[in-house]
C-alpha cells in the first residue's frame, strides 16, 4: 500500500452562503491516476465543490488538501499543481488564443521553452493552431472551451479540475479530449470533471460521485464490466440454484428464498446464466444487473431528493 498522500482530499468540507448550506460536510479522496466524475442535477453543488477543490473558494468548515498540504495555508501550491477549467471557460477577450496561453503560463511562472513547448503542443493537440492569432472574443463556444482546456493543461498539473469540459465540443473533439485526459491520468494526474453527460462519465471515469442538494449521496468506483446479476426465481428455488450455478459463478449470495445475487466468471455472460438455470428446471422469473446502471443510480438519487424535498 502506498504511503503517498492522495493528490486531492476534501476533509469534511462544507460551504455556507448567505446563511444557506450549499455544500454539506463532504469527504472525498482522489488518488493519482483517478478520474472522478462529479454528477448532480442543476444546483446540486457541483460547481461550488469544484471551486473549493481549485482554491477559488474557501471552505466554511473542513479543509482541502493538495498532495497532503492544506490549500488554505499554501494557496501558491495551486499555481503549480492545479489546472482549473471553470464553467463557460472564461477568457480575456482582448487577447489572441496564443496570448491567452502565454498569459496563463506567465501567471504560473513559466518562461521560455518551458512555456512555448507545451503551448505549441496543446495548440496542435486541441486543434487550435489555426486559431492561434484569433481574438478570444471571436471564438465559438467549443473553441473557447478548448482554449480554456489548453490553459488548464499548460503547466501539466497534478490535479485537473474541469467544470463541464465537453460543452460545445463535436464528437471528434470530444474523443480528442478523452484521449488527452486519459493520457494525463496515465501520467499520474488526478482528474475531477463535472458533467451532465452520463456517457462521458462511463467513457472516461474510474469513479463517480453524485451530489444532490449539497450532499454527497454516492461515491463509488465505476464498474464497467456488468458481471454481477440479481436473479429472481420461483419460491424456494434459491438453494437449488446455488448448486446449478456453482461452475458458472465466482460468488453466489442468497438474499432470500427467491433471490440470488451471482458474480459470474469472466468467460460467462447473462445468456449462459439464463440457459443454465432453465436447463436445471428452475423457474427463472427475472434477471437484472446487480449493480444498477449509473443512470438508475442517478435517477434514484434525484428522485429520493425530490421526495425528501416534497
Amino acid at each position, binding site marked *: 500500500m502506498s504511503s503517498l498522500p492522495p493528490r486531492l482530499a476534501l476533509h469534511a468540507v462544507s460551504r455556507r452562503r448567505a446563511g444557506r448550506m450549499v455544500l454539506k460536510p463532504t469527504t472525498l479522496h482522489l488518488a493519482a491516476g483517478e478520474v472522478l466524475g462529479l454528477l448532480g442535477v442543476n444546483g446540486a453543488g457541483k460547481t461550488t465543490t469544484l471551486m473549493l477543490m481549485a482554491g477559488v*473558494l474557501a471552505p466554511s468548515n473542513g479543509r482541502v488538501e493538495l498532495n497532503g498540504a492544506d490549500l488554505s495555508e499554501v494557496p501558491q501550491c495551486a499555481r503549480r499543481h492545479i489546472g482549473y477549467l471553470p464553467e463557460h471557460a472564461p477568457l480575456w477577450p482582448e487577447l489572441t488564443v496564443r496570448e491567452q496561453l502565454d498569459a496563463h503560463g506567465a501567471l504560473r*511562472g513559466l518562461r521560455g521553452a518551458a512555456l512555448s513547448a507545451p503551448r505549441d503542443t496543446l495548440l496542435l493537440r486541441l486543434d487550435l493552431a489555426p486559431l492561434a492569432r484569433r481574438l478570444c472574443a471571436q471564438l465559438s463556444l467549443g473553441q473557447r472551451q478548448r482554449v480554456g482546456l489548453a490553459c488548464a493543461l499548460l503547466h501539466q498539473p497534478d490535479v485537473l479540475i474541469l467544470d463541464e469540459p465537453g460543452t460545445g465540443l463535436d464528437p471528434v473533439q470530444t474523443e480528442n479530449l478523452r484521449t488527452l485526459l486519459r493520457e494525463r491520468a496515465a501520467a499520474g494526474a488526478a482528474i475531477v470533471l463535472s458533467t451532465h453527460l452520463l456517457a462521458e462519465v462511463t467513457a472516461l471515469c474510474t469513479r463517480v460521485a453524485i451530489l444532490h442538494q449539497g450532499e454527497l449521496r454516492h461515491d463509488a468506483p465505476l464498474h464497467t464490466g456488468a458481471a454481477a446479476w440479481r436473479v429472481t426465481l420461483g419460491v424456494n428455488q434459491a438453494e437449488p440454484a446455488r448448486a446449478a450455478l456453482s461452475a458458472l459463478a465466482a460468488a453466489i449470495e442468497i438474499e432470500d428464498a427467491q433471490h440470488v445475487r451471482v458474480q459470474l466468471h469472466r468467460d460467462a455472460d447473462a445468456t449462459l446464466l439464463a440457459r443454465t438455470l432453465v436447463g436445471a428446471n428452475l423457474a427463472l422469473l427475472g434477471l437484472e444487473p446487480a449493480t444498477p446502471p449509473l443512470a438508475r443510480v442517478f435517477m434514484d438519487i434525484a428522485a429520493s431528493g425530490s421526495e425528501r424535498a416534497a
Partner: protein
Amino acid sequence: MSLLAVLRLELRRLLLRPWPWLLAAAVLAWLGWNELLAVGAFLKAQDRLALLPAAPGFTDIVAVPLLAQFAEIALLLVPLLSMQSLAGERRAGTLALLLAQGLPARSIVLGKYLAQLLWLWALLALVVLLPLLLAPATHLDWGKLAAATLGIALLLAGLLAVGVACSSYTRQPPLAAALALALTLALWAGVAQGRAPQLAGPVLGWISLPTHLQPLLRGWVGTDDLAYFGILIALALSIATHRLGRERELG
C-alpha cells in the same frame, strides 16, 4: 514575479482595448483646443501684462490651468478606467482564473493598479507635452510646471486607488464607477466646506483633495500634501486588497 505577470497582462489588455484610446484621444483633443484658446487669450493680454510688476507668465496662464482642467476631467476619467479592474474580472469570471492560480490578493490588486497608473501617467505625459511644445517660443517656469505635474500625477494615483477599491466591492462595473465618482466628488467637494471653517472643521478641509492639490499647482511642494496622497493611496489599496483577500470566503 506574480505581480509583474499581472501587471504585464493588465497593461497588455489595456493597450488592446479601444475605449481607453478613445478616451485618451477625446481628452487630448479637448485640452489641445483649450490650450489654443488660452494661448490666444495670453497673446491678447500681453500689453496689459507688460504693465504689471509681477505679471503671471505662460506657465500661470496656460500650462497650469491646462493641468488643472485635466485634474477635473480625471474625476470622471479615472472611475471609467478603473471600474473594469476587479468588478469586470469578477463579472466575466476571469477573477476565478487568477484566484485559482493562488496569486496573492496583493499581487492582483497592485498589478492591476500599477498597469492602469502607467497608462494614466502616459496620458499625463502627453498632456504636459502640450505646453512643452510651446516652450521654445515662450518662457516656462520649470519648477512650477514640475510641481503641478507632480500634483496631477499624485491626484491620478489617488483617484485610481479609490476606483480600484470601489471596483473590488461589486461585480457591476457601472456601479463601481458610480461609487468611485461619488467618493471622488465627496473628496473634491470637501474643499468648499474646507474654505468655510464655520461650516466644517479643519479635518474636513484636510481630507479634501483640492486642499492638497492647489499648493502643488501653485508650485509649492509640501510634505503634508505628499503624505496626504500617500495615505489616500495606501488606504484605498489596503481596502481593495483586504476585500479581494476575502473573495475566497465571500465567493
